[in-house]
């Protein structure tokens, strides 16, 4: 069982949700970067890097960074820079870059090069996340979204070949034509670093991961936990169909987590920062406002379904009790007892071997983040690790 610490590095200083949404259509693409204060930004990068380093001290198995462009949601347009810093400040934890949006790099061999550097610099600790990139980023980078999926598959193929085929070799695809592929350095891990792909539940992504033996990391911040449950079932079926042995570590759950002494205290402390995350920062691809989903990024029927789901969530009934409301969307907010119970049940039920916990979310400040991280690491992880490992061993699902 793997416990990873996931950071988005959000900008925490926007106006509170109601005020913000009255003024702005989204936190993506068009939110002016005049809102970003580089002076405050210095302290923020320092703080966020410290939190990643602290996660290793606390015994997390891995540290996760990711790529976003031109928004307040995530301040890592180049997660590789942050990962490079982590190679020098940590010793043991895996460094998971989840991921590089390969279609935004031309040629994508740049990704093969930088990730090989990270793997060598970290002593073989890299987990390579390769992603298609978010819908809003196709606006920000002006890449044709109708080509997103085939371009992504070709770029991924090129990156893996660049790691595994002795160079120089020629690559002749539909989108990329390179007479000399020969990146120095090569990765330390052989045949190549593990590849993990995050997704929102698209069947084709799930099947692709199962088929290739890549990790599938389901993003579940924006939907009730049952939504991820359906993704997990689809992944189990896809692995069986691909004829591979099931490895729980390759199924990941990306979820928000907050732990405090009691359930009431946890909900009360997390609620405003969770609201900032879901209402301010995610505005732009979820929520009631503008949805930066470019044409062709997903098929029209999938887009219609996506919008229907958004409307149902925005207009549907909400539990009036704050604890129930929180549990419906973010079940891992509570006392150590509550979180360990829910998490253990959930990972066993869905055979999840990797939990990528977003323990800093929205505007959650440093002190609350550190306390929650410590409680989670000391009072939740050891219990769930033991219970899940024993369960997977009984089920014959442990890695050889």
């Amino acid at each position, binding site marked *: 069982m793997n416990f990873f610490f996931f950071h988005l590095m959000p900008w925490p200083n926007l106006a509170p949700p109601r005020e913000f949404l009255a003024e702005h259509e989204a936190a993506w*693409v*068009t939110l002016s970067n005049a809102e970003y204060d580089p002076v405050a930004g210095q302290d923020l990068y320092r703080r966020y890097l410290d939190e990643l380093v602290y996660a290793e001290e606390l015994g997390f198995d891995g540290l996760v960074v990711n790529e976003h462009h031109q928004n307040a949601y995530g301040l890592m347009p180049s997660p590789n820079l942050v990962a490079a810093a982590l190679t020098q400040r940590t010793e043991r934890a895996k460094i998971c870059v989840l991921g590089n949006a390969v279609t935004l790099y031309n040629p994508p061999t740049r990704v093969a090069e930088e990730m090989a550097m990270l793997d060598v610099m970290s002593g073989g600790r890299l987990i390579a996340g390769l992603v298609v990139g978010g819908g809003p980023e196709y*606006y920000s980078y*002006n890449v*044709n*979204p*109708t080509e997103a999926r085939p371009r992504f598959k070709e770029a991924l193929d090129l990156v893996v070949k660049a790691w595994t085929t002795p160079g120089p070799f020629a690559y002749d695809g539909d989108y990329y034509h390179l007479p000399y592929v020969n990146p120095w350095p090569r990765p330390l891990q052989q045949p190549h670093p593990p590849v993990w792909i995050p997704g929102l539940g698209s069947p084709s992504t799930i099947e692709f991961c199962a088929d290739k033996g890549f990790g599938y990391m389901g993003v579940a911040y924006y939907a009730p936990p049952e939504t991820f449950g359906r993704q997990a079932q689809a992944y189990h079926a896809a692995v069986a169909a691909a004829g591979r042995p099931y490895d729980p570590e390759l199924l990941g759950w990306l979820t928000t987590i907050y732990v405090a002494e009691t359930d009431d205290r946890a909900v009360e402390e997390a609620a405003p920062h969770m609201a900032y995350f879901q209402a301010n920062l995610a505005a732009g691809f*979820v*929520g*009631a*406002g*503008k*949805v*930066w*989903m*470019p*044409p*062709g990024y997903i*098929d*029209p*029927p999938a*887009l*219609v379904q996506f*919008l229907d789901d*958004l*409307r149902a969530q*925005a*207009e549907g009934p909400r539990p009036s009790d704050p604890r129930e409301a929180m549990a419906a969307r973010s079940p891992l907010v509570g006392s150590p007892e509550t979180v360990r119970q829910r998490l253990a049940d959930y990972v066993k039920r869905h055979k999840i071997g990797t939990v990528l916990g977003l323990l800093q979310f929205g505007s959650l400040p440093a002190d609350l983040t550190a306390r929650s991280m410590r409680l989670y690491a000391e009072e939740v992880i050891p219990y769930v690790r033991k219970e899940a490992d024993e369960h997977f061993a009984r089920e014959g699902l442990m890695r050889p």
Partner: protein
Amino acid sequence: MTVDVAARLDRSTLDVGGAEVTVARGGEGDPLLYLHGLCGDVHSSFPGTDWTPFLGRLGANFDVVAPALPGYNGSAGPAGFDDVEDYVFHLADLLEVLDIESVCLVGHSFGAWMAAELALRRPDLVEAMVLLSPLGVRVRGLAVPPFFGAVAPRGIGGFAEARQLLFADPEGEAARRALPDDMGREHQLLWFGGLQGAARLGWAAPHFQSPVLTRRLRRIDVPTLVVRGGADRLVPDQMAEVWVRSMPEAQLHEVPGVGHCLPAERPEVAADVEGFLGEFHGGLP
């Protein structure tokens, strides 16, 4: 004159070089090929009907052939197509399948761009051409509203921004009919599917502006009328000027108070289209 063209409408699916094409056809007279626009037009964002008041008027004097462009209304593009060249040969193939030797060509918006590309490569197919609020020319440094950003959907709240960009009267009947805030499922599929088809060619930077076409405009010597809505907020008037300045046989007609979706907002413009085509094409009553 009232013409019950809907009664004579024929909607069919043709196989054009292995690609399915939905074609709406109606009216009487010599053939007129109509290439629809991005919005508020036959095949684009009017669900459940293939006919529009604008085409109804043209149908009084012409045999109007209105194919759905690739991505729209069930039309597939040619296999693997990714450039204007494929698109144009696809249209030429369609005329051959229909056994039409030459046509009057009318295009709106994105369809006008494709019409010009066809006239550039196959002038033998085109007797005269009308371009309604055409996209396609490149004017460097000109501020053009970002179409794909404006039409991005909203979780709640409908399509006001898109209507604002595409119609002179964003709350008028034509705008509300093309882009209602409570757009139903079939309508959404039509709208998003069309955008996907248009993005395939139109997304390339800068959106809907072809530097290649622009430098070749002087080679299009088909008699051409460029019609511009005076309140077109998507296409700046400098672009209309580039068309008529560059094309030796082009003239400009401006219709005041109308937005980008000209045929939907002012179907009466059909009279100007007929008037112009009649000058170059015999047989009008």
